[in-house]
């Protein structure tokens, strides 16, 4: 078959030229890539492929063009002599491309590993850098948290209304909260140095007891201990405590929590007192009632006899003495009945300031209180209130009489009223600068028939009757006294509005 070779010729010449141009362009790009990232072996691979392809394109393209030209010119023999060289170079270039390509896989894997390692290193160094840069910050944050927590627990320690004490195993006080200082009567500025907890115990054996229990159980709960304040006063308390084995580096400590139950004990004492008074009251009321009737009969008959007797006779005087003493008896019995609240109250609207002032004037009129300063101080805001005025007057008379007696010839008595708004109460205060009441007597002065006055001068009923009256009004009497300095009686009455 005879066929035109024009298509072959055109494709050959044009293709060869195109191959040369394209291979040069590829090489340029590959070199640029390689220059961009020197460390990447992959670009080196591509560059080598392109080098080999260039070599191939040149040797083959130039060869083919030359061949076509020579064939056209009828100089085939020249071509025949060049052909093996061109063919060999082609072969060589194929081999270069192939062999370089065979390395591609391994190169790629190695490069990838390097890259991954590099990334890992980078992120590690970033992390390190971050830590380095923020270490200070992190530490600051952490210590702030610690400080907040420490402040919180310190507040609990400081604000606690119970005493919190930390002692060593030997009982030497290490720390004490403000309430503890208060309770033990220590000054805040005072150092604890070397003080033992047991120094504040009334009974030293109590400490031994506590120590033994701690040893056995590791803790104690609500042990009642009488504490001795630094000023010598005694105080009831409930002590709880436990061992803190602590951190390995720390010494063992004992933590104590001490509750002040003095208040409660006082209350209990008062309750007992009130109870006592109430039962005595009931008893005496019964007796008083029984005695009242015969006394009435005696008084009646003696007055009947007196009416028929001429005055100034001996019999008249005798009868008069009987009458006087019977009347005395009757008033005592009445007082007793008052104390026992057995008589009917007469409630009416009273202005307490006026009533108090009346009583004071009455007393000033009837007793010799010259040389004694009288101070009045009435609260103008005191509202009118409902109460048994006669009885309250009696209370005030009793208190003022006692004060007058206590002051003696020279001194000061003050009478004041005060309206306590938030409690809606009236406080009537009778203060004097008299001889005062000894501590041991403080709990007894409200007992019926308790008196320190010589017989004939006092019956010892004044305060007990007053106590009964005030109680029946729902109020209370509080006494504060220091022997040799003076006494203050405070009558607290709830305000019942009319």
């Amino acid at each position, binding site marked *: *078959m*005879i*066929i*035109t*070779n*024009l*298509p*072959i*010729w055109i*494709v050959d010449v*044009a*293709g*060869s030229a*195109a*191959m040369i141009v*394209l*291979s040069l362009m*590829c090489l340029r*790009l590959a070199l*640029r*890539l390689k220059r*961009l990232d020197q460390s*990447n072996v*992959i670009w080196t691979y*591509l560059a080598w*492929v*392109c080098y080999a392809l260039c070599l191939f*394109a040149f040797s083959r393209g130039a060869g083919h063009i030359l061949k076509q030209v020579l*064939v*056209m010119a*009828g100089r*085939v023999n020249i071509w*025949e*002599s*060049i052909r*093996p*060289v061109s*063919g*060999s*170079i*082609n*072969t*060589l270039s*194929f*081999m*270069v*491309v*192939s062999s*370089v*390509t065979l390395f*591609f*896989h*391994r190169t*790629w894997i*190695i*490069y*990838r590993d*390097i*890259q*991954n390692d590099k990334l890992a290193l980078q992120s590690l160094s970033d992390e390190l850098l971050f830590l380095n840069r923020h270490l200070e910050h992190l530490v600051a944050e952490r210590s702030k948290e610690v400080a907040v927590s420490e402040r919180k627990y310190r507040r609990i320690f400081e604000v606690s209304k119970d005493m919190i004490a930390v002692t060593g195993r030997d009982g030497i006080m290490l720390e004490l909260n403000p309430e503890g200082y208060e309770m033990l009567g220590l000054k805040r500025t005072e150092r604890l140095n070397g003080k033992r907890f047991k120094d504040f115990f009334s009974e030293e054996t109590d400490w031994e007891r506590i120590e033994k229990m701690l040893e056995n159980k590791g803790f104690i709960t609500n042990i009642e201990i009488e504490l001795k304040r630094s000023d010598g006063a005694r105080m009831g308390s409930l002590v709880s405590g436990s061992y803190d084995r602590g951190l390995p580096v720390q010494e063992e400590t004992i933590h104590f929590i001490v509750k002040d139950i003095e208040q409660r004990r006082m209350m209990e004492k008062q309750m007992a007192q009130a109870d006592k008074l109430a039962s005595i009251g009931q008893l005496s009321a019964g007796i008083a009632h029984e005695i009242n009737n015969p006394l009435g009969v005696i008084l009646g008959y003696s007055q009947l006899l007196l009416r028929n007797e001429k005055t100034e006779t001996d019999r008249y005087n005798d009868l008069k003495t009987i009458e006087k003493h019977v009347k005395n008896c009757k008033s005592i019995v009445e007082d007793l009945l008052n104390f026992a609240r057995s008589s009917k109250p007469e409630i009416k609207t009273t202005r307490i300031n006026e009533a108090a002032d009346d009583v004071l004037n009455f007393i000033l009129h009837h007793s010799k209180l010259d040389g004694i300063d009288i101070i009045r101080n009435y609260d103008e805001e005191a509202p009118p209130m409902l109460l048994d005025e006669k009885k309250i007057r009696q209370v005030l008379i009793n208190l003022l009489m006692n004060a007058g007696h206590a002051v003696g010839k020279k001194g000061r008595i003050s009478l004041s009223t005060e309206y306590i708004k938030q409690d809606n109460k009236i406080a009537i205060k009778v203060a004097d600068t008299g001889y005062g009441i000894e501590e041991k007597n403080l709990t007894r002065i409200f007992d019926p028939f308790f008196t320190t006055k010589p017989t004939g001068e006092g019956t010892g009923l004044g305060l007990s009757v007053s106590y009964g009256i005030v109680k029946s009004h729902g109020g209370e009497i509080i006494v504060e006294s220091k022997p040799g300095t003076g006494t203050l009686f405070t009558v607290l009455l709830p305000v019942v509005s009319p």
Partner: protein
Amino acid sequence: MVQLSAMKYILNKIIRFLPVFLAVLFFSEQAMATQMHGGIEGVVVHQMAHIVFAGAMALLIYWLRQHGLVVNPGWRQIQYAAVFFLLWNINAFIVHFLEEQVDILDMAQIEPWQLRLQAQPAFEWVAWLYYVVKLDHLLCVPAMICLYSGLKRLLESPASESRPGKMEGS
């Protein structure tokens, strides 16, 4: 690292010895010209080179796919280039093979633009095949174009994208 430097070493070796090879080839031009008729070995080596080239291209395609590089448009283009080169090598192999089959196909340039292809009876299609496969530039030029566009894309795309570290997670 050791492997990498070994690679570089080998590449350096090749670079260093390439000019020597070329020089030997060019200077032995005269000697070779006289021996060409007897040298069937040259053809065999050339054919082998085509096969190796084709095999390398096939491997390259496989690796590009295995490493997931083909997601990157640049490497995808290079993959296409490899496909074209592979086809071209097969094509070239056929051309050379047919040129050796003198007892089946006889070819001669009878006039400047005329080609005489004389095939044995029942082997006419071989003549046609030869005519078609002779147009081998229709395969290798597209291969070069693909390679070029692939390189261009690699150059354009942010360097990191075509890098191994990013291409494969582990």
